[in-house]
């Protein structure tokens, strides 16, 4: 049952889709004003230049082939950077993908910023259009701009919610030849100056110090042709009790990626492996034992159609450890896909103490 607070939260989420005031005002240009001239104080012009008008548009960021992120000498599952959160800010989620690496940070009150590092060829100056404002970030050349209509990977496994997309000012900088990073903050159009200030703050908190992802499980089996695509971590040292951590997404043969909202049936199919230390979690389904641990097998009674795509079946294997759960869930066209999930479960190796992050595996040896 929902509460009134759920309604308030949903409405607050909606407001983030508000259009630019600049666009609305531009539509009124040329109309007679009740005052003699359209006049705006100089200071306001300067502020609005930053807020709406004088900022460039970055046409697109995602998509295309691209190579794995560089600047990550430790391997594919190594972040090319670390970020020291400014006072009052906390790393909420970290995410590594084929083409990008992102860190989400939360700060008071209800502020969220995302720093993304792109792989070579997936983002560059050619994505910028005229009007950008030059700046430097830790000695590297960059720009203040804005991004529209862009699809960036969020910190969830099923595409990025629209309210996490960069709709306000962004900071982009070239930290090495043909390697770019992006920093932006979420907020309503009225908070643009704060979004920009926060975005610059986060950009300057980035350090070129590589760091391998950490995972509480080692993956020893994948279905034929399926391949790992993304991995998300909680903030360092904060396996939140309510948070699904160490989320590994695996995609089927022929699938391009999950950066965008699914547009084809194949792109919707996926497997998610995740770790959670939620004691109250209790799955339903058939009780089995996997590698000596209690587990539950669950799946939809019949295929469903999601987003108008080809009918597919959700299935899951939930393994219960001492104070934690490992979930292996899939949406796949094959209704008997649960058997593949069981194989994945049987070939998982758990860290010595999954509740202690310091015992987790280096992702480069644990994730194929």
């Amino acid at each position, binding site marked *: 049952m929902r509460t009134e607070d759920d*309604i*308030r939260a949903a409405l*607050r989420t909606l407001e983030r889709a*508000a259009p630019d005031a600049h666009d609305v005002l531009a539509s009124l240009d040329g109309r007679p*004003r009740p005052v003699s001239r359209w*006049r705006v104080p100089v200071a306001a012009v300067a502020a609005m230049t930053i807020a709406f008008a004088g900022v460039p548009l970055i046409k697109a960021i995602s998509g295309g082939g691209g190579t794995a992120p560089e600047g990550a000498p430790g391997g594919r599952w190594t972040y090319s950077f670390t970020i020291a959160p400014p006072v009052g800010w906390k790393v909420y989620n970290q995410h590594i993908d084929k083409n990008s690496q992102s860190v989400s940070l939360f700060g008071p009150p209800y502020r969220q910023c995302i720093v993304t590092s792109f792989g070579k060829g997936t983002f560059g100056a050619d994505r910028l259009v005229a009007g950008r404002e030059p700046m430097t970030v830790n000695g590297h050349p960059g720009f203040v701009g804005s991004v529209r209509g862009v699809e960036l990977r969020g910190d969830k*496994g*099923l595409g990025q919610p629209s309210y996490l997309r960069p709709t306000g000012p962004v900071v982009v900088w070239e930290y090495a030849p043909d390697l770019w990073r992006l920093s932006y903050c979420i907020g309503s159009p009225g908070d643009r100056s704060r979004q920009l200030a926060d975005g610059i703050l986060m950009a300057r908190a980035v350090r070129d110090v590589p760091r391998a992802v950490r995972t509480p499980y080692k993956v020893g089996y994948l279905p034929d042709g399926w391949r790992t695509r993304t991995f998300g971590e909680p903030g360092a040292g904060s396996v939140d009790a309510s948070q699904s951590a160490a989320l590994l997404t695996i995609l089927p043969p022929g699938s391009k990626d999950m950066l965008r909202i699914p547009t084809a049936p194949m792109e919707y199919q996926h497997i998610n492996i995740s770790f959670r230390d939620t004691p109250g*979690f209790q799955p339903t389904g058939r009780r089995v034992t996997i590698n000596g641990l209690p587990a539950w097998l669950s799946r939809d009674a019949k295929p469903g159609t*999601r987003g108008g795509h080809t009918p597919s079946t959700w299935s899951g294997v939930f393994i219960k450890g001492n104070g934690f759960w490992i979930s292996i869930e899939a949406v796949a066209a094959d209704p008997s896909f649960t058997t593949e999930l069981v194989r994945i479960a049987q070939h998982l190796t758990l860290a010595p103490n999954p509740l202690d992050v310091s015992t987790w595996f280096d992702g480069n040896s644990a994730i194929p």
Partner: protein
Amino acid sequence: MTFDDWAITRLDPLLRFATVLCGSGSLAEDVVQDVLIKALGRWDTIQAADRPDSYLRRMVVNEYLSWRRKWSRIVPQLEVEVHVRDHGADPAIEVVDRDQIIAELAKLPRRQRAVLVLRYYCGYSDAEIVDLMGCSPSTVRSYASRALAALRVELTPAPESSSSEGASHAY
């Protein structure tokens, strides 16, 4: 306050309100644009009002409620459709459920939706909503009750001490 002075500081909040009301940024842009065109023609009256923001907010509500022809062609769409199931406190599910609420809000009749937005987004009392929408208190309560039932919302019991205050709601 000139229209330009107002627009610099107050247009953003009005656009956010309109977006929540309409459920779509693009529709909100159209609605606010139409409202501002009208407002330009009677700015002397608006700026003389006690609360110009309230006046314009009322205009937005009226524009939204009366915009039958255009509205009928615009149906807000969820960008991601997923099944919601009980997975405990997984934040991804919370996000999905929030999207689900937004989708269900979009399906509500416009007057019901407007009442919810005025109550839960703007924090208006029922009396203020009555004044803004120009309908009776029982009608406002009825709209709210039906909308909350459609959204399967469990009401938070009102504190006893607040029963006589204007901001409390009689469900």
